[in-house]
């Protein structure tokens, strides 16, 4: 498989990030007959020779099951027909974007962070490894496995932390991590149910151990929404 180097990062699809870090989007230049899979609604602009096909991933039944669990069911595949073509991809959330090249390894990704990947990367949204940990927080995680490009984004900025040993992250800020890392949830301040546990505002944290990359976000959407709602007009019931 042909690959090209952009900066120090290996990639299969020729791409350029525009608008980083606050309003990142991707400009891809697909080679003739090259295909990329993209989350729904993210296509912003493209050459006319790029053809789009919508696929229900993992078959219809698995798709419906996933839809019921509020995970994205469809994926769009874009192929440059006959000659090369440009494709602009703009995720729904304003924020940062990152790229990793997978070389027969696995990254675990917050479900809503997925933007696009090479066809050699398999997205498994049936992955339930973290379900118990993030229950009630509206999170789901997916596994991206294989060889090729993976693009992901978040609201806010993205920071890459090289973990070697143990590291603590507030659950709500996890974007992605190498599957080489072990993880477990903890209550901050240990299990001692004291003032710190309840009043620290940090709630439940995730402890990562081992060696691998961890990506975190600098802002969360939920507090912003919560703040905006305080301005919502109220029905006058009095």
């Amino acid at each position: 498989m042909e690959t090209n180097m952009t900066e120090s990062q290996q990639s299969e699809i020729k791409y350029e990030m525009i608008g980083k870090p606050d309003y990142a989007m991707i400009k891809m230049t697909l080679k003739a007959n090259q295909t990329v899979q993209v989350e729904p609604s993210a296509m912003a602009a493209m050459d006319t020779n790029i053809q789009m096909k919508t696929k229900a991933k993992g078959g219809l039944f698995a798709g419906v099951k996933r839809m019921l669990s509020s995970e994205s069911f469809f994926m769009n595949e874009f192929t440059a027909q006959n000659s090369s073509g440009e494709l602009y991809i703009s995720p729904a959330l304003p924020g940062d974007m990152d790229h990793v090249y997978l070389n027969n390894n696995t990254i675990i990704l917050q479900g809503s962070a997925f933007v696009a990947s090479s066809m050699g990367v398999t997205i498994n949204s049936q992955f339930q490894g973290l379900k118990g940990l993030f229950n009630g927080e509206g999170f789901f995680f997916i596994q991206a496995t294989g060889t090729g490009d993976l693009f992901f984004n978040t609201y806010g900025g993205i920071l890459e932390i090289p973990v070697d040993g143990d590291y603590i992250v507030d659950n709500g800020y996890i974007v992605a991590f190498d599957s080489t890392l072990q993880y477990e949830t903890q209550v901050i301040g240990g299990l001692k149910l004291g003032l710190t546990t309840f009043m620290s505002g940090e709630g439940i944290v995730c402890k990562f151990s081992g060696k691998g990359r961890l990506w975190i976000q600098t802002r969360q959407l939920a507090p912003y929404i919560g703040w905006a709602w305080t301005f919502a007009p109220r029905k006058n019931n009095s």
Partner: protein
Amino acid sequence: MNIELLHRPANAVAKITMSSGEKIISEAGAMIAMSEDMSVVTSKYAKGGSGGFLKGIKRLFAGENFFMNRFSPGPNGGELYLGTSSMGDLMTRKIDGEFIVQGGSFVACEDTIDVDASWQGFKSLFSGESTFWVKLSGTGQVIVNSFGAIYEVDVNDTYTVDTGHIVAFEETLDFSVRKAGGSWISAIFGGEGLVCEFNGKGKVYCQSHNQNNFGYSLAPMLKEV
């Protein structure tokens, strides 16, 4: 202690590298990530003069942060990422003396600084507003956040700032709050509510945007609840 600001200006975070023995106090909920052996202790800070644990809890559930966390690294030092919930910038500076910070803008400070969340300097003038102020005294580094961008005004004589745009100021300044236009008509219809007039010599830090004005402009697009 080394404080590095990343992702400025829209989504700024502070990466704090600490040696063993150094401590930092932060607003509850500001921690994003940290070294595993960082110890965290939460303490209650009386706000607005009226203390009491139950009142503290009441405020906590009213959505106001009232508790602060004290972080201290393990024997080999450690790192800590602190953020804020609002969109905007962070600023760090070393203070030596007294520094007044708008409650919502306080992110963190070194443990060598005394934090007084019950500062009453503006009380009578701001009554009815939910704003509270934090008085920091001592020597050390301080981190504050702004809604939007942050800019510094060097006051040398007199300067007027809309109260919704004040992030922090040096206590060497005298200040008084008044209506912007001198009459209630311009205060209400002119969109300029209360302004703070600073006198003397010192620095005022302002934010480019007023959080409440942004919120009110969103209001018509939010469904009635």
